[in-house]
């Protein structure tokens, strides 16, 4: 248990995180009192903005690592990844919690967030998404509950959860597969509004494939960072394994993206200099092309520094993809009559506060719960 208590709580970084969270909280209270118009630059032509694009779509994609690692360890019995299972699941839990809070603040009538649970409308992707968020957040809570039960010295409860863990994990995998792809399906309804660089009938599959890339990179990045911060050995075998997973997902993703690029606007449209073409190029070069180029080299997959770099690239690129789908890809159609959208500083601060909340929450857990049981055993 030595490593845990070595984690310093009140570092300058933590204080900065708390500062962002406090600022975010003030703005959130203001948003609840004064409404969305007072806080955001959203308007009738741009009903969704930064909070949906980054916090919800991006946050959920980042959380994909949870179901992948949990599935690998508990369903496929890949014991190698056991040491990072708790961290990955906990991280996904924070990701989803965040997305759920972000959604609650983004909808106009936050106290009705529960309506979809009783008011069913099975034709709506948004309903499907809402049900998934509820079910999967509960699943993640169950999956990470043993850590809390241990802390509370409720071993019997932890044992109960351990007994049902396999079906719970399987349920979580199922929900995640559906949820990640459903977020892409949200945009199936806007065939002409969304630029053909991003719109196609396989948006759900593309969202799933890119979420897998992003989720694995996120877990890998976290393993590296917490390894450094908590000073335990980083198992390079785990990181290489995750990198291989990212590589396979990236190959599938790239192939699909190219296929739909050729089918949609055409390959040559890439270089027509429009905002859409440039954003598409940017997203693909950062998130897929360079990382894949590196990943295909075996020694890059076995070196912490290059893996770190790849992770950062993939995460940024896929985040950009979500922003492209949610904002830039819709921009031309929505701005046809002169409307425009750029987030207010308050939208940015709330987003920063959300991210800080996730990092802070994870740090807190790493200090007080047994997130890395195997690493402790090393000491």
């Amino acid at each position, binding site marked *: 248990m030595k490593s845990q208590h070595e984690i310093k709580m009140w570092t300058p970084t933590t204080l900065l995180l708390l500062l962002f969270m406090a600022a975010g909280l003030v703005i959130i209270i203001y948003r609840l009192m004064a*409404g969305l118009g007072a806080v955001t630059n959203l308007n009738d032509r741009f009903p969704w903005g930064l909070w949906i694009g980054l916090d919800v779509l991006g946050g959920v994609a980042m959380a994909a690592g949870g179901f992948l690692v949990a599935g690998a360890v508990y369903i496929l019995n890949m014991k190698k990844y056991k040491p990072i299972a708790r961290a990955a699941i906990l991280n996904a839990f924070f990701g989803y919690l965040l997305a759920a809070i972000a959604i609650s603040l983004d909808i106009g009538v936050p106290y009705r967030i529960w309506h979809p649970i009783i008011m069913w409308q099975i034709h709506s992707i948004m309903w499907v998404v809402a049900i998934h968020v509820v079910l999967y957040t509960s699943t993640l809570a169950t999956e990470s509950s043993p850590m809390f039960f241990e802390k509370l010295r409720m071993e019997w409860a932890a044992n109960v959860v351990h007994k049902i863990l396999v079906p719970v994990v399987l349920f979580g995998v199922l929900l995640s597969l559906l949820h990640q792809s459903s977020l892409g*399906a949200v945009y*199936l309804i806007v065939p002409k509004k969304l630029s053909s660089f991003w719109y196609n*009938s396989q948006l759900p599959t593309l969202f799933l494939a890119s979420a897998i890339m992003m989720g694995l990179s996120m877990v890998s990045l976290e393993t590296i960072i917490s390894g450094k911060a908590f000073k335990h050995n980083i198992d390079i075998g785990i990181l290489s394994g995750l990198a291989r997973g990212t590589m396979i997902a990236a190959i599938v993703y790239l192939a699909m993206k190219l296929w739909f690029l050729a089918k949609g606007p055409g390959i040559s449209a890439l270089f027509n200099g429009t905002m859409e073409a440039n954003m598409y190029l940017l997203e693909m070069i950062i998130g897929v092309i360079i990382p894949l180029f590196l990943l295909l080299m075996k020694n890059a997959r076995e070196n912490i520094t290059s893996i770190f770099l790849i992770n950062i690239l993939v995460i940024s690129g896929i985040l950009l993809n979500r922003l492209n789908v949610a904002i830039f890809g819709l921009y031309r159609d929505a701005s046809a009559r002169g409307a425009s959208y750029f987030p207010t500083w308050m939208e940015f601060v709330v987003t920063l506060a959300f991210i800080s909340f996730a990092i802070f929450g994870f740090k807190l857990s790493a200090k007080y719960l047994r997130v890395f049981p195997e690493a402790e055993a090393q000491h």
Partner: protein
Amino acid sequence: MAKSVLIDLTHCIGCRGCQIACKEWNERSVKKTTMNGNFTNPKELNSECFTHIRYVEQELNGAPVWSFVKNQCLHCKNPACASVCPVAALKKTKEGPVTYDFSRCIGCRYCMLACPFYIPKYEWEKALPWIRKCTFCSDRVSADIVPACVKVCPTNTMFYGEYNDVVKEANNRITKNPGKYVNHIYGKDEAGGTSWMYISGVPFETLGFNMDIPKQELPDLTWAYIRKIPAVIGVVLAAGAVAWAITRRNKNMDKEE
């Protein structure tokens, strides 16, 4: 059965009577507007304005042409806005109107994203905002009274009736008056067909109509995905259980060895 309206743009004189009548009947207030070098006022529909006239000045064949375009919800036959609403706050009624029930709405604004015509508007300035759009005067229509805007129009720009009669009327006007209309009923096929349709003497594309609206019913696009979910659930659960059983057996065999 389903009511429908034909807007004959050749009749409209741009008096804005409909704009006022709509405001009165639906108890809408006003929003501050600014000069924009154009008679269109407000410039766009908003949460207080369910219908307005768009004024279009242009030159066609060397002559100046002034057109007046009434704008409002088209009440699609299979509306994207209603299909995406997670809580069924928006509904297509059998009488024709697409209605809204605030007591259900969570304010996710997916309807605004989904509508190909950018019709649903939001009360951004309020703490508890409603989605607002033309109601097709559903309260009047269900009581068999014509919508307020239709009723007030001094030039009979709008023809109100059963859907089939309205389409027939549109076709009649186009065929009986060669050269008067362009040969297109806007809304007949757009978005899979809408309850409000337009005929016009000048090309629609010059009047600010979006000609790039998909011709299919948009909800089919998302349903194609949702429809598959039960099968996916079955396959994933089965595959997961099998994978677990196999890998566990392998593990146990490892132990025995």
